[in-house]
């Protein structure tokens, strides 16, 4: 098993737990950015120095890493932080919600994902990190929890981002690589989705539409 990939995946899980346990929106968004950074570094860690000598795959990997970094670690967190400031929503994510409970739940989800990873999915190929699927699943589940349980729009967007990161980790684990066009398309779509959401959040909290934003979370959260 690869040393660096293991540590990076561990970091991914750690960030999940941190996001689940912190109440401050700014900290959550920055943690998301860090997770994006880790995700960008993941292909490098998995392929090791082969990246630089791999012939035609070099361009592919470099582009994918750069795009992931720029979008997930820079652009998206930037938009979210801006939306947070513009909308002037409370900095505390959900003060009425027990953070202890949230952290414990996230821990249970992490445990669950280790179990699922061990029971349901094929054993990892030789040479790939055994943590890939559990880390990805954990991120996905924590993201799902944050999205569904989020009280404000911004927490839901952050949850969506975490979920998307989880899908990415699993994708890298089961696929190794995917066609560049698809990879870039996926990243771009996620970026646009988050930008749109950020715009809607910022709009929903403008003075004239103040109550609209608060109501928005309820039908979605309540119905699911």
């Amino acid at each position: 098993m690869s040393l660096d990939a293991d540590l990076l995946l561990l970091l991914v899980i750690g960030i999940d737990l941190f996001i689940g346990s912190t109440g401050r929106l700014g900290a959550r968004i920055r943690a998301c950015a860090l997770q994006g950074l880790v995700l960008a570094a993941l292909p490098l860690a998995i392929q090791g120095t082969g990246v630089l000598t791999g012939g035609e795959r070099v361009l592919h990997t470099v582009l994918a890493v750069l795009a992931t970094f720029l979008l997930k670690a820079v652009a998206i967190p930037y938009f979210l932080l801006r939306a947070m400031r513009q909308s002037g929503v409370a900095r505390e994510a959900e003060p009425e919600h027990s953070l202890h409970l949230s952290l414990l739940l996230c821990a249970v989800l992490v445990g669950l994902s280790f179990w699922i990873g061990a029971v349901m999915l094929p054993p990892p190929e030789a040479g790939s990190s055994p943590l890939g699927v559990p880390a990805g699943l954990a991120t996905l589940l924590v993201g799902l929890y944050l999205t569904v349980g989020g009280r404000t729009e911004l927490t839901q967007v952050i949850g969506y981002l975490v979920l998307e990161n989880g899908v990415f980790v699993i994708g890298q684990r089961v696929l190794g690589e995917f066609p560049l066009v698809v990879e870039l398309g996926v990243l771009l779509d996620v970026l646009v989705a988050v930008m749109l959401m950020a715009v809607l959040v910022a709009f929903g909290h403008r003075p004239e539409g103040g109550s609209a934003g608060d109501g928005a979370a309820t039908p979605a959260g309540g119905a699911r």
Partner: protein
Amino acid sequence: MTLLWALLLVPVACIPIAALLPSAQAVLALCVAGAVAVAGIAAALIPSALESPVFAGGQQLMLDALSAYNLGIVVFVFGFSSVYALRYFGHGARDGTFGRSKARRFGAAWFGFLASMILVLVSNNVGMLWVAMETTTLASALLVCLDFDPPSVRASWTYLMICSVGIALALLGTFLLCGEARTVTNGAESPFLWTDLMRVASRMRPGAVKLAFLFLLVGYGTKAGLAPMHTWLPDAHGQAPTPVSAVLSGVLLNCALYSISRFLPVVEGSTGGDGWAFRLLVPFGLVSIGVAAAFIAHEHDLKRLLAYCSVEHIGIIALGLGLGGTTAALFHTLNHSVSKMVAFFCVGNLAHDHGTRDSRAIGGLLKTSRLAGVGLLVAVLALAGTPPSSTFMSELWIARDGIAGGHLAAVVAFLLGAAVIFVVLLRPILGMAWAPAKEGQPTVRARAVDWPLIVLPLALMVALGLWMPVFLSDALTRAAAVLGGVR
């Protein structure tokens, strides 16, 4: 095939043009022109695609019988809706409420929506299929919040959030499926191309493929509005401008269902044709019908009523696929799209004329606004499955195929649900049609453009209910063959 590229690139090219045109009228005219051009290209492509799949861009783009059939529905509904958009926004364009910047936004998103739906249908690469599906969400979310007033922003938000999460699960399913395929493909085959997936399906492990399909079903099912993942649908379809509602209900849901059905034969190939994937669709279909019935009974907002009705029909289509009535389900797709489109057109006109969408506040429709009133009545009768409409025929076929396949309990549940919906759906509409007109309700004369928009599709629906042309039955058979043949 250059035509396939043209089909994709014409709407893409229209996006920047629409964003630069100088006036709202010009944008609306471009919408019609672009939709007609795309329809023309599609008409040239579809006959050959029905014969044998058309490829382009290596194997990345493919138009086979199934996607050609769906493409036909898309361009048909989109063409009519574009013309209707001209009529719907026409007032606003003249009195300034539909200003230039709003029109540009509409035009760009409209063509982006069309392009992404075409990409869904023509991409042979399942990763690209996902990208396209997500892009439809983004483009249509922009269309839903065109007015940027609080209710539409709220609806748009809910739509974007739920569908993005759902579709992220579909991405996971795609990864799992391709990851499994990667272990069995040889150098010449790509684990991302649907045609290659079909080829290697029998070599993939059934367990892994089933897990992937579960994620795909839940993910794309969210987008298709299958209950219980339908919660975004009434808000989005209800708050969107009416031409957008018509397209959302009429074809976007089909595209999502098409994405699910693409994977059915792959799963079947892997499990050795035991029908597991098809059976999985049955409960989703039945739950959708049941949920729709419950909500329609308490809904007074006409557009939301039609939105819940869409949940029902998507349920029926899924049920049809699940029960083995593939041909019938595909036929029902066409019937639902066309009738729902007309129903939305009529509701849009009524809402504009009467200033409300509340079914209790409108009465005497047959006298006060004859064309829209009669049109709505006929369209809803068709949606409820009244003979001699084609919807009746397709629902009958689904029941027949279900009984032939031995799924008696499911068919009984389906017919029961359909009967309940018949009652609850018609109750408010019949009330509007024959109740005395409310005080101060204006009498409205239909405009010339309304006649072809409403009468033509309805006539088509009735005609198809009485007589099935050879080319259509041929197309249905060929499209069904892609999904594993007429079973």
